[in-house]
């Protein structure tokens, strides 16, 4: 089996996808992912020169848009109904210091 991903790589992916894995889980995930990626080999062996990709399996459908007309949405109460934590009409989250957002 080819080693597509090291445990270090898997840790990086876990960090990017924000899934906390312990050492044991990283080890298992590395084995699983390498096995799956191995099984994807056929896709890399095709001669696809000149073949256009099909990103949308919808035939010739294009330019699907709506008119700029208001639609009734949620009240604040409904918007926050499923919020794990809320305060002052807003969703409440703990400190975001250290988040890598580009803001």
């Amino acid at each position, binding site marked *: 089996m080819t080693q597509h991903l090291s445990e270090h790589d898997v840790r990086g992916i876990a960090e990017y996808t924000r899934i906390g894995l312990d050492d044991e889980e990283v080890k298992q995930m590395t084995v699983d992912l390498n096995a799956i990626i191995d099984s994807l080999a056929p896709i890399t062996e095709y001669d696809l020169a000149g073949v256009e990709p099909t990103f949308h399996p919808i035939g010739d459908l294009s*330019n699907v848009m709506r008119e700029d007309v208001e639609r009734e949405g949620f009240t604040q109460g409904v918007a926050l109904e499923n919020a794990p934590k809320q305060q002052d009409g807003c969703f409440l989250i703990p400190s*975001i210091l250290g988040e890598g957002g580009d803001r």
Partner: protein
Amino acid sequence: MKKLEEVFETWEAVIGLEIHAELTTLNTKMFCGCKLEFGAEPNTHTCPVCLGLPGALPVPNKAAIESIVLAGLATNCDIEKHSMFYRKNYMYPDMAKNFQTTQGPVAFCMRGHLDLDVDGPAARERYRLDDLGVGESDGNITRTEDGYVAHVGITRIHMEEDAGKMVHVGGGEGRIAGATHSLVDYNRAGTPLIELVTEPDLRTPEEARLFMQKLRQIYLAIGISDCSMEEGSLRCDGNVSLRRRGAKEFGTKTELKNMNSFKNLHDGLAYEICRQAEVLEEGGVIYQETRHWDPSAKRTIVMRVKETADDYRLFPEPDLAPYDLTDAFIERVRAKLPELPDQKARRFEEAFGLSAYDARHLVEHRETSRFFEACMEAAGGEAAKLAKPVANLIINDVTAYLNAEGVALAATPLSPARAVELVRLQASDAISSKQARQVFAAVLAEDKDPEAIVEERGMKQVSDTGAIEAVVAEVIAANPDEVARYKDGNTKVIGFFVGQCMKKMRGQGNPKVINELLARRLAE
């Protein structure tokens, strides 16, 4: 730290801008029918789509696509018929889906440009401009009488959606640092946003500021955004790097954020250029990083260091059909294109004989250019004659008043008819320029016509030679000593005589006529 002009002796700055504009003039968001409204109660303009609820799907707002095509046409872009939306994947709590729907390698608008007129003090920021003769070009600039024209390339304008808003609580002044928690409001999430990216064609902070100003004028003219830098509907990030004069290679760039006014844009860039020069001259290294302009501390501070290029896992958005814009669609949008500020300025020059400078300043704001046009209509046959003084009144007095009072022109008692009447009174020598200023103030303060104010205050300037001659004779006769002094060569005494005449005429004598007559009589 060196001053900017000193830095420019050695270094050339390379600046590119990324300008985001919210399409605030639309009714609804980019991908759902929620109302666009600034300042509403938190989370009251939300739905499954903009809250990113499981199962919700986006549907693009046609008017937003029309707006971006309009923006592209107004900035000389090629409109790309075939394009797609993409998902830009990264997790951040103000982004409900944890991906931003944006465009990929092909945007709706590609390869545009704007030409900037840089003159006056702004032009002097350019290093050794005087090495160029009028009409000569160097790189992307061409020398003009009073400055130069800079040709600034626009890489693309793409369509995307804005994020929600966060308030950071528990730290100082709403900053992230020190905050114990944050509050998220998704009212803004999904607001249609267009991002314009320039080529790295700008060389001075003034050029950057002028580009931003010009773009704002265009966006306002085509009516796609309220362009409020204060409320964040127009935002600008700058990419800055330095290279030694003559070098071809680009230096390492930093990305500058929080330049939320024209002044901040200029000052932030100027500071960053000087900071980079200092680092480089001390043998240091510029890191590719995002920096935040702090206007109160007058410096930029590091927000985060980019060790590697961000990997946003961009891929075509499967929930949105691709675009295949038709010629008919593009032409329908083109038909909505109004006269743009540049075209309007050229028309003002040609139709009313205004100088390029006056014309450009009039079209800077839609309300002043509209006011000017209304004045010209009110002036009727005298339009060409009154154009210059009307333009002066608007550019100087009116603009100063509006800025000082912070009001809109339409909300003041100054109508185009009153403005024309005021200018006409002064042009016909009925009132002096000093009186004109008083009348202007009184019109605004008392909401009365200029004629009425002049009448009421008995302000009419006396230019009648006969009447003035009598006063002049009287004053000369009453002050033989001063006459003698004048004849001895002390010509400054004429001021005394003018003052005396004015006093006798209760300030209503035409000073020009008084001066002429005095000079004549005293020379006898």
